[in-house]
């Protein structure tokens, strides 16, 4: 099943990498307006990552906020070798891992994540729901590898696990997803 909801304007549209570089430089000097602009451009990708990794909207919001607070504090360390989104992703993953460590008790509430994915997106509800139901580590690996396109080496580095472990979690996730979605056409139609 695929749902198409109304489109929201994409704040990143029309912003070139040079513009983002300039915003970064301005933000580094303490320009909060520039930092807010960076937030507007990147928050979709950061919240999306946090939401899918935590499968908990409330925790995802906390992690997203903490990511930007941490980013503001560490902005001087951002050298621009990687893109700002990749840099923010790394901070966000650390926030998610930290939040899970702090809240071991935290078994995510059974919130229907796909309904919270938000308006303006083409949502594959079944797949989103199946991903959110995966075991924590398998979900994190699958999200980073499957949705955000990181290789196993990078995924392993982000999650502070061995590359082989990342692959094992990915295959576990894949097997579970196929089991859940098995009866349905995998194209989502």
């Amino acid at each position: 099943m695929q749902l198409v909801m109304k489109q929201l304007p994409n704040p990143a549209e029309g912003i070139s990498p040079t513009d983002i570089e300039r915003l970064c430089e301005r933000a580094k000097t303490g320009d909060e307006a520039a930092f807010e602009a960076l937030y507007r451009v990147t928050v979709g990708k950061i919240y999306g990552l946090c939401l899918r990794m935590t499968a908990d909207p409330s925790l995802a919001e906390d992690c997203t906020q903490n990511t930007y607070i941490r980013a503001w504090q560490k902005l001087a360390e951002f050298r621009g070798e990687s893109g700002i989104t990749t840099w923010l992703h790394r901070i966000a993953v650390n926030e998610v891992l930290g939040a899970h460590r702090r809240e071991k008790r935290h078994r995510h509430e059974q919130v229907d994540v796909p309904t919270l994915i938000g308006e303006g997106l083409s949502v594959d509800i079944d797949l989103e729901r199946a991903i959110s139901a995966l075991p924590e580590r398998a979900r994190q690996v699958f999200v980073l590898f499957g949705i955000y396109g990181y290789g196993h080496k990078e995924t392993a580095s982000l999650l502070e696990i061995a590359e082989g472990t990342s692959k094992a979690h990915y295959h576990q996730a894949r097997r579970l997803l196929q089991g859940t979605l098995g009866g349905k056409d995998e194209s989502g139609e």
Partner: protein
Amino acid sequence: MSRVSDIDQNDPLLQRTRALNAEVAPPDDLWPGIHNRLSELTERNRPHWRSPRLAIAAVLLVSISSAMTVWLDGEFRNPVPSNNADLAYTNVALKPQYQVMGPQFVQARTDLILSLEKRLGELSPESRKVLAESLRNIDEAIGEINTALEDNPDSALLLHLLLSTYTDQLTLLGTIDGMTRTVNERTRL
């Protein structure tokens, strides 16, 4: 971020996953919360000036030492004999606030003030007034810093400011005392 190379591009599940939108808009705007926390951080890192006067006093302290030295240098080149040595600075010389610096500091400071007061008769009444006022300003600034420290006893900035103010004050007193000695010797010659 390097794109994954170790995947089966024909895997329908992965293709379906890649079709998911990486960006998810948070249900609420998270920026106001981030902005508030950034403001708190800025506030926490800012010196906790009890009053604008303290800030002004602190700025004055930075320049007062050199300004006084320059001014007094000119003054001592043309000493005005006078018997009126009532600088009235001794009144603030032994305030309890100086005890925290230890007995050696208190003793050195007292000796300098007593020595200085004996020699200040060389100055014109107007000059003595200016000097006394400047020294009193330093004392008041020290008092303000101490009061601010009562509210923020762990403030490294305030402690540093206090220490450097005490040191500056001692240096200034020593400089003035040294200059008066030199002038007296020059006059005798």
